[in-house]
C-alpha cells in the first residue's frame, strides 16, 4: 500500500474542510470544518511518521489532538457567549469589530 494515497486523502479532506470554512455561515459549522482540517493534518503527520520510520509524527499528532480539545472548549464557549448577547450563531452578525 503506497502511503501517498493517505496524503492525497488528507489533502482532499483538508480542502473540503477549508471549503466548509469559506462557504458556511453558522459559526458552529465553521468550527466543525476547522476540526476536519485539523484531523486531516493529523492523518498527514501519522503518514509521515510511517514514511520516516519514527514515532515523532504520532507524538506530534497526539499534541495536536490535545490542543484541539482545548481549542474546542474555548471556541464553543465564545460561540455560546456571542449567541447569548446577539441571539444568533451566524458569523456575519458578529461584525462589531469590523471598523
Amino acid at each position, binding site marked *: *500500500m503506497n*502511503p*501517498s*494515497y*493517505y*496524503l*492525497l*486523502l488528507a*489533502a*482532499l*479532506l*483538508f*480542502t*473540503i*474542510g*477549508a*471549503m*466548509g470554512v*469559506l*462557504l*458556511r*455561515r*453558522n459559526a*458552529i*459549522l465553521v*468550527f*466543525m*470544518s476547522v*476540526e*476536519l482540517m485539523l*484531523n486531516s493534518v493529523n*492523518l498527514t503527520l*501519522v503518514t509521515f511518521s*510511517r*514514511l520516516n*520510520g*519514527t*514515532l515523532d509524527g*504520532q*507524538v506530534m*499528532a*497526539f*499534541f495536536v*489532538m*490535545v490542543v484541539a*480539545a*482545548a481549542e*474546542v*472548549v*474555548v471556541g*464553543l*464557549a465564545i*460561540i*455560546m*457567549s456571542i*449567541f447569548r448577547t446577539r441571539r*444568533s*450563531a*451566524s458569523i*456575519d452578525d458578529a461584525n462589531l469589530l469590523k471598523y
Partner: protein
Amino acid sequence: MSPDLMTSPDLVLALGGTGEAVTFWVFAPLATLAALGMVLARNAVHAALFLAAVMLCFAGLYAAQDAPFLAAVQVIVYTGAILMLFLFVLMLVGVDSSDSLVETLRGQRVAALLVGLGFAGVLMSAIGSAVGGDEGVGLSAVNEEGNVIGIARLLFTKYVFAFEVTSALLITAALGAMVLAHKERPQSRLTQPEMSRRRFLSADPLPLPGPGVFADHDSTATPALLPDGSEAPSSVAAALQDAPGDGGTVRQA
C-alpha cells in the same frame, strides 16, 4: 497488489498489505462522502453526525497505519468528547439556527469554490510528485516493543517539556470556558415559601382556574363551550342542570 506477491514466501507481509489496502479503500471513500455531507448538510445536527463518521473513519485509517494508540485516542477524544460537546452547544444554541442566505461579500461562494478546487489540484499534484511510489521505512521496527510503549518513551523523554506545558494549556482552557460561559443571575431565585407568601399578599389569592374551565367561573355548573362558541349542555351534570343554580350560572342552551 500484484499476484506474484501473493505467491512469494513473504506471504504474511503481502496479506498485511492487502488488508491495509482494503481498509483504506473502505474508509477513504466513506470519509470523503461524510466530509462532503458535513459541509453540505442543511441541518447542523446532521453535520455533526457526519463529522462523527469522518472521525471514526480517521480512527480506522490510523489503525491501518500502525498507530493503534492514536486510533483509540481519536475515538475517545474526538467522537466521544469533542463531538458530544458540539452536540450540546448545538442544542443550547438551537438546532434550527440554519445558515443565512445573505451574501455579505458578493460572489464569495463562487470564488470560494474556485479557490478550493485550485487548492486541491495544487496540493494533490504536489504530493503526488513529491512522494511518488516511495513505500517509506515503515513502523515495524519502532513498534516492536509496542506502539504505546514507543510513544510513551518519546513523550516522557524527548517531549516531556511540551507534555508538561500541555497541562497548563488544559487548565487555562477549562478556566477560560468557565469564565466565558458563566452567567450571573440578576436576582436570586424565588423559593417556595416566598412564592406562597407573595400569592397570599396579592389581590387574588385563589389558584387560577384549571385548563378547560371558562375563565370567569370555575363552578362545575358552568357548561363547557363547543368549538363554535355555543354552550354544551351535556357537559353539566343532570342534577345541576335543573337546579335553581347559584346566581343563574346554569343557562339553558
